[in-house]
């Protein structure tokens, strides 16, 4: 498997080297020219707090407070960079580890933990931040994003020339997801409809235990080209490059220029989920290689080199992160098991005789137990 972001990867778009030096590119540098020190600190904060969230959730899972956790560790630059390029009116379709995008969209992150605690299949209202629910069936949401984008076209909010109005969708998925029929059909529908959708593929080099070479023998960004969709590969650990290419792609989509396929080449630094054991399939050396290319360190190096940050600010952020961690822990621990009838709610929007009968039966059945808790236990 390729571990490289090496110089011979001529197609990889980079605005920041792994050691934090700026790369000047006439095509993309102008797109980040307006990002001043404040903006960089903002990005840094997003990434740092995303990571804090991730760390806390991992710990909560270990403590039995969550059933499972899927880490975003290592993918913060890809997520924060791309997420920040989106406008509020854009609609985002995440997969299931886009915690950094969720944060940038303004989602109260603990809502994500409801799903992983087993008390909710969703957890928030997608309309609140134009951030859809997590989708667990790999690739299936790429079609939803495309259909939503087709709806935007019909609503006349594409290519009006009004940047407050023009909108697009962006869908996140992994390297593994590129093999699914659905994902490829989404590229078909997006292309023939010239739909305003950005396909943001985080190639974190692993689909659980399978390296990307099990999904493709060529870099994944070439997939989009085969459908006639402008496609590119960006250094996913370079928050500035991710921001630049995504803002270009979204702008094109919003203005009526159609879809773009972005492959953000990054690395899943953690396990697939807390149920996974990566030592069974990848080397410690590989993990170390990528720890040395941590996307957060990279931005910090730049900020330090450019005097965009000082110790006082970092200390303040550290305090904020600590408080954030505390908030996450307290909130999760306070999440209650829903009452049993939650199970019967919202199966249908209208009445349905079978559900209604079964619910009535179950309620009567439960009343036959003096101590309702005795109904738990199962098989």
């Amino acid at each position, binding site marked *: 498997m390729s571990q490289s972001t090496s110089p011979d990867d001529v197609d990889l778009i980079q605005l920041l080297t792994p050691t934090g030096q700026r790369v000047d590119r006439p095509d993309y540098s102008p797109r980040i020219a307006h990002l001043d020190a404040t903006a960089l600190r903002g990005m840094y904060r997003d990434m740092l707090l995303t990571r804090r969230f991730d760390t806390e959730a991992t710990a909560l899972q270990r403590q039995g407070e969550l059933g499972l956790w899927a880490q975003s560790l290592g993918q913060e630059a890809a997520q924060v960079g791309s997420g920040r390029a989106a406008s509020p009116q854009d609609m985002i379709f995440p997969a299931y580890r886009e915690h950094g995008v969720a944060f940038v969209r303004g989602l109260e992150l603990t809502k994500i933990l409801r799903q992983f605690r087993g008390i909710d299949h969703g957890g928030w209202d997608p309309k609140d931040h134009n951030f859809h629910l997590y989708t667990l069936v790999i690739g*299936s949401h*790429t079609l939803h994003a495309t259909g939503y*984008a087709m*709806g935007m076209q019909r609503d006349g909010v594409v290519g009006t020339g009004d940047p407050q109005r023009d909108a697009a969708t962006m869908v996140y998925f992994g390297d593994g997801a590129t093999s699914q029929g*659905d994902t490829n059909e989404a590229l078909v529908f997006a292309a023939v409809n010239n739909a305003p959708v950005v396909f943001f593929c985080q190639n974190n080099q692993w689909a659980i235990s399978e390296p990307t070479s099990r999904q493709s023998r060529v870099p994944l960004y070439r997939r989009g080209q085969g459908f006639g969709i402008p496609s590119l590969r960006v250094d996913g650990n370079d928050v500035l490059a991710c921001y630049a290419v995504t803002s270009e792609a979204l702008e094109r989509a919003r203005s009526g220029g159609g879809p773009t396929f972005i492959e953000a080449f990054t690395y899943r630094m953690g396990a697939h989920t807390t149920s996974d054991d990566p030592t069974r399939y990848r080397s410690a050396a590989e993990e170390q290689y990528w720890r040395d290319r941590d996307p957060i360190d990279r931005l910090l190096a730049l900020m330090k080199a450019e005097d965009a940050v000082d110790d006082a600010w970092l200390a303040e952020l550290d305090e904020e992160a600590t408080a954030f961690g505390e908030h996450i822990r307290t909130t999760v621990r306070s999440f209650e098991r829903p009452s049993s009838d939650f199970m019967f709610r*919202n199966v249908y*929007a209208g009445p349905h*005789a079978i559900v209604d009968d079964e619910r009535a039966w179950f309620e009567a059945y439960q009343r036959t137990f003096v101590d309702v808790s005795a109904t738990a236990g199962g098989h």
Partner: protein
Amino acid sequence: MTTLTLAGAINAGLRRALENDPKVLLMGEDIGALGGVFRVTDGLHKDFGGERVVDTPLAEAGIVGTAIGLAMRGYRPVCEIQFDGFIFPAFDQITTQLAKMHYRSQGRINLPVVIRVPYGGGIGAIEHHSESPEALFAHTPGLRVVSPATPADGFAMIQQAIASPDPVLFFEPKGRYWDKGEVDLDAAAGAPEGLGVARIARAGTDLTIVAYGPTVATALKVAEAAAAEGTSIEVVDLRSLSPLDTATLAESVRRTGHCVVVHEAPVFFGAGAEIAARITEACFFHLEAPVLRVGGFHVPYPVSKLEHDYLPGLDRVLDAVDRALSY
């Protein structure tokens, strides 16, 4: 009242829906200029344009998946699956996404998507063009599964389905597309809840035949034939498999004490199993014979030259009626 074929009645219902709600759009393969391979969308592309009557790429998962996205954005997509046998590529989108999004989102997202499926046999077609997969969808919570048997119901039910806030699998008995009936084009379609209500297609006292879609007409012929021999058969047209109108069924069977269920799908694990189990539970002490089931065999839909041996025709249903009455 106007005399229309079932296909024509559904066409009229679609037209009405397109007229009444700008959010309604039709999607599918060849539904535009061609008007669909059965012409059910005939004329609609011409009158409503390619943005509302959409010829999609040849990909059923894509059709349903993008319909879900459109529905999230506030549209009411009506998807056509060209034939029953081609719904399976969309099975994942229907089962894991369409059926569950409302639940997953705690009711925050409605997906008023209708999936029209011409189904059933009797038209002399090649493989994959004559199947009855309805039971596969009725087992999935979150979906509504209905099938009209008459032009009047075709006209009303397609509008109710489109108005429904829930996803609806709308199974159209293609072998009945050209059967004619009276339709009141001025009638309001009725509330979507009406979708779940069975209809007594013919009253009777000795035995209840439960049918839906293509087998309702068969059941009526059977009742006719039986009447000539002095047997009074009640025919219940279910209209809907999910929900199932157990109340109407049970009321009928409690009166008649005998029940035969007829559908084209294989009997094994078919809709008749649920109906029989449910009726037996509801009417245990009223039943004078077990609920008998007549339908397809546990074989793939056979070659068309044998389909009339496979399908539950007049003779086989009469045979079951006799067996039930003489149990």
